[in-house]
Each structure stands twice: as C-alpha cells, then as structure tokens.
C-alpha cells in the first residue's frame, strides 16, 4: 500500500505551520515544549549578549539553541502527518540530542576553568560520533515506521535504543567526575558553592532529559517523556541563582529582574495549556516557584537595603573626613608658604652680607676667615634653593603657580644653559656635550623662566650624580607629532627599577644619592614634572640600572 494512502486511511490531521494540528492529543505538549525551549533561548541569548567573549556563555548558547531545536523537532513529530518527514526529523534528532549533552560538557569545562576540552578530548568525542555518521541514515537508527493501529511512530533501532542512551549516560558521568574533581581542588568556599550550584543544575537537567527520553522510548509513551523537558527550567533556575548570588558570568542581575523574567515566561506559557483542568496543576507548580523566588527576592532586597544604609553612613563619614582633610591641606600649604616667605628674607640677608664681607666691603678679610665665610654663603644659597622648592610645591598644590607663556627657541635656550654649566662640569672633571637634530624651527610656547629652570635643574642633577664621564644634552623634534624633546644623558650612578618608579614623587631621591655626597630636598624632579605637565609637556626617566647612567627626557609641544 502506498504511504499516502495509508496516511489517508488513518485519517491523520494535516499540520499547519509545521507545529499545529489535531494530531497532538496530549494536554501538556505545547506547554512542556515551549516553556523550557523559549526560556532556554531567552536566558542563553541574554547571557551571551552581555558576555560574548566568555567561553561558558558561548557553550550555554550552543546548549540552549540545540535544546530549542530538539524541542521544536519533537513538537513537529507530534503535529506532522507525513511519514517521510517524521522519519527524517526523528533520525536527525539524534544529533541535536547529543549536542545538548556536548554543549553541557563544554559548558561545565568553560564555567569551571574558562577553557574548552583539549584536542585529545575533542578527538574522543569525534570518535564517539563516528557510528552516528556511518549509520544515521540506516535502519540501525530507525528500524521503520510503525503503522500498527495507525500509530504515527518510528521504531527506534539499536543506535537510538542502545548506543545513544549509553553515550548520554557516559557524558553525564564525565561531567559529574570532572566537576567533582575540580570542586575538591578549589579551596575558596564561595567558589565551591558556585561550582556545586551549577553542576547540580546541569546534572539534574541531563538526568531528567535522559530519563524522559529513555522512559518514553521504553514505554513508547511519549507523553510521560515530556516531563523530562522540565529539567531545563530547573537548570535555568540554578543558573539564575548563581548569577544573582555569585555574579556568575560577571553579570550583575538583581533578584527582582530574575523574578520578573521568570514570572513573564511562566505566565506567557500558561497560554499554551489546552484545557482549564490542567491549568490547576501548572498553577500549583508556578506558585511553588513563585514562593521560592519571592522568598529569595525579599531576602535579597533586605540585604541590599542594609548595604545601602551602610554605604550612606560611610559616605557621610567620608565626606566629613574629606572636608577635614581639605582644611588640613590648606593649612599646610599656607603654613609652608608663610614659613618659606619668613625664612627667605633673613637668608637673603645672610647671603648678601656674607658676600659683602668676603669681597672686603667691611675691611680686609684674612685668609683664615675666608673659608668659614664661603661656607656661610654656600649654606645660605642651598637653604634659599630648598626654600624655593618648598614654595614651588606649595604654589603647585594650591594652584597658584603662574605661567607666563611666550614663544621662544628651545634649542637656543638649551644650548645657552649648557654653555653656562660647562665650567661647573669641567670643575668636576666631566665633559658636557650639546647636540641637536631639528627639522622644525624649534619654537615652543611656554614659560621661559620655568623651562630654563627645568633644563638647568636636570643638567645640574646629572652633574651632581655623575662622578666621572660625560653628560650629553641632545635636542631633537618630531614634526609629525609636533613635539620637541631634550635628552639629558649621563654616565652617572644610574637607578634601579624601584627608584625609577618613584623618582618623580615628592621627597624622593635616588638610592645611591648619598654615596656621591649630594644634598637635596627631593623636590626638584617633582616640581620640574609638574611644571612641564602644566605647559602641556612631560618628563620621563630611563636607566639601564645602577652604575649604568641615566637619561631624562623633557617633552614639550612645538608651536612652529
């Protein structure tokens, strides 16, 4: 008998839109398929969109899509009247059922260790699929179509009945043992609970999915088998709990959002219950779920309110502390400013009078007196420099530092400063070289006095920290980036990595600074950097290590 004639004899209803027909006599079929598959799709897509690079969200999306395709294929089997298509879809479902398990395996690997199974494990999976590739289209997959009593069912062969179900149990066991081993390795209790929650969710899902299919297959009662699909919403509840409780996938979802999404999906799915009698059963299940989620929500809200109150209390405290700190800082700056001004006048007097005495303005100075007078003069000069540094810091921090910008030739200025300091370098047995390679005019728009101070201080520093050798000042520019650079390179004591990182901080001096008997406040580089930054430039320091010299680079924007 021809297959179409058989179909007519059995008076099967013709399906519309693939999934709707009177062939579906089970009351829960739409509910059991649509609720799990749509919720799986929504949740997995939501997680994937928020964390597309996370491997576990990729695996979850693969699982969610495979599960949805499987569910819709199953729904098609219920609705369709075409024997050919039923045989095709039923045979092909073998792959999507396995993909749900594979996706779960990949998910657990990625969730725990953020990696997928390696090449060897992938090869094992590949080998396990070979029987499916070879016999998927043969009678070993589906033996035939059972038309006895006009049943619309395929008869599953050994590939489905034996191989696939054993494979599913094997993969579930693989997940269980892998997660168990990782759980025992992890020491942190929060992470342990997180792994336990997700593993428990996935094991429950796979267990109910397997049991549903196996019971349906053995009993050939496919309506009972549909209960297995509810493992997916259970898994999603566990995933949702992990997201809310442990911020899994680095997602911050509040319990309220989770409850709203769950309630929307549940209420929406009630539309697909075919008879009002069955609604009672579904509503009881929904009520239980609502009670659990509602309890979690209330607890979550209470905890968040407590945290909010605590944060508000701390914010008030922090604001008070901040005001106090600003007052203290202002007082400190004022104190430094006043003290420095008060000190500067007498120091200038000391320095001036010492100079006059040394030069003989108050009568002949004996050779014996000259040395202590020179010492007084030198100390007074050093003190004046220190006071100037303190004043500069005070001005920078209080924002009162003034910059009188004008256009000038930086190369010429650097060359003049080198000429001025060359005699000082020679006194110490050092060679001070000046080099330039300029393509632009070398004009900068900055405060001339401060730029001079910066270059002077850096060259002076190099002289101080170089016991022997050469100091090279190299001026060059980059027309493309509109920048001009001054490198001050020396063959001095150099710096280690730690010193390099902190050299521009206040009161910081090189580790070996004292070994070359250099006195200083540790403010010079800090002040120089702040000045350069205020003029749109920068200062960087480099050194190969201690004893290997240093290179300071001043960078300023070119005006033309």
């Amino acid at each position, binding site marked *: 008998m021809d297959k179409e004639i058989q179909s007519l004899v059995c008076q099967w209803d013709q399906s519309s839109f693939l999934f709707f027909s009177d062939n579906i006599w089970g009351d829960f079929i739409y509910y059991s398929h649509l609720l799990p598959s749509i919720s799986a799709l929504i949740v997995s897509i939501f997680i994937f969109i928020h964390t597309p690079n996370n491997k576990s969200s990729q695996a979850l999306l693969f699982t969610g899509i495979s599960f949805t395709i499987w569910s819709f294929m199953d729904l098609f089997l219920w609705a369709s009247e075409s024997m*050919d298509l039923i045989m095709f879809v039923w045979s*092909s479902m073998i792959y999507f059922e396995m993909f749900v398990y594979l996706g779960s395996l990949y998910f657990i690997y990625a969730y725990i260790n953020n990696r997928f199974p390696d*090449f060897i494990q992938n090869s094992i999976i590949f080998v396990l*699929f070979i029987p499916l*590739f070879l016999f998927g289209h043969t009678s070993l997959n589906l033996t*035939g179509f059972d038309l*006895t009593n006009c049943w619309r069912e395929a008869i599953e062969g050994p590939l489905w*009945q*034996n191989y696939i179900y054993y494979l599913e149990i094997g993969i579930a066991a693989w997940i269980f043992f892998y997660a168990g081993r990782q759980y025992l390795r992890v020491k942190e209790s929060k992470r342990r609970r997180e792994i336990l929650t997700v593993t428990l969710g996935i094991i429950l899902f796979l267990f109910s999915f397997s049991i549903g299919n196996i019971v349906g297959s053995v009993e050939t009662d496919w309506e009972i088998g549909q209960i297995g699909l509810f493992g997916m919403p259970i898994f999603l509840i566990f995933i949702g709990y992990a997201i809310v409780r442990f911020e899994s996938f680095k997602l911050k979802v509040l319990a309220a959002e989770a409850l709203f999404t769950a309630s929307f999906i549940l209420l929406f799915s009630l539309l697909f219950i075919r008879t009002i009698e069955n609604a009672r059963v579904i509503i009881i299940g929904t009520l239980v779920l609502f009670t659990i989620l509602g309890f979690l929500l209330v607890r979550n809200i209470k905890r968040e309110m407590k945290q909010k109150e605590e944060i508000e209390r701390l914010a008030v405290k922090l604001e008070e502390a901040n005001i106090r700190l600003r007052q203290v800082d202002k007082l400190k700056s004022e104190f430094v400013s006043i003290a420095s001004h008060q000190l500067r006048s007498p120091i200038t007097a000391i320095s001036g009078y010492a100079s006059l005495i040394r030069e003989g303005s108050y009568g002949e100075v004996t050779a014996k007196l000259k040395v202590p007078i020179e010492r007084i003069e030198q100390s007074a000069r050093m003190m004046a420099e220190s006071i100037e540094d303190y004043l500069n810091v005070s001005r920078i921090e209080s924002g009162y530092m003034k910059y009188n910008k004008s256009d000038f030739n930086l190369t010429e200025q650097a060359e003049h400063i080198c000429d001025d300091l060359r005699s000082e370098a020679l006194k110490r047995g050092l060679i001070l070289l000046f080099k330039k390679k300029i393509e632009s005019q070398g004009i900068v728009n900055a405060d001339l006095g401060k730029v001079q101070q910066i270059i002077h201080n850096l060259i002076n520093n190099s002289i101080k920290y170089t016991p022997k050798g050469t100091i090279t000042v190299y001026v060059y520019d980059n027309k493309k980036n509109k920048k001009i650079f001054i490198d001050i390179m020396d063959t001095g004591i150099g710096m280690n990595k730690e010193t390099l990182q902190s050299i521009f901080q206040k009161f910081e001096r090189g580790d070996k600074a004292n070994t070359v008997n250099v006195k200083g406040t540790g403010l010079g580089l800090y002040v120089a950097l702040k000045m350069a930054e205020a003029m749109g430039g920068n200062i960087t320091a480099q050194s190969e290590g201690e004893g290997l010299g240093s290179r300071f680079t001043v960078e300023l924007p070119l005006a033309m």
Partner: protein
Amino acid sequence: MIYNVRIALPNMNKVFALRILFFTLVVFSIFTIYHSKVVQRDYEVFMNPEGPDTSDYFLIESE
C-alpha cells in the same frame, strides 16, 4: 613575534580543523538522512497487528 605566532597556530588549528570536519560530517549525515527518508523513502512500514519483532533490543520488553 612572528616566530611565536607560528608556534601557537598549529595547536589552535588542530582543534579548529577537527570542529570543521565534525560539523561538515554532521551536515553531510543529515543530508544523507534526508535523501534516504524523504527522497528515496527508504524505510519499512510495519503493519503487523502484533507489532514488529524488536526483542533484539534489550530495552524493549519482549511479549
């Protein structure tokens, strides 16, 4: 840099190639199933009131 890339690629490629082969075979297999069941209609229809003899498959209870 280029040297490192050359070292790293083969490992990535092995898994990638395996995945490509795997999904190609899956698509090919599904196509074969379609050809066998829908185009050729190569399957048996059982009409025996007693049902087909499936006692070989251990999960099904024999009558």
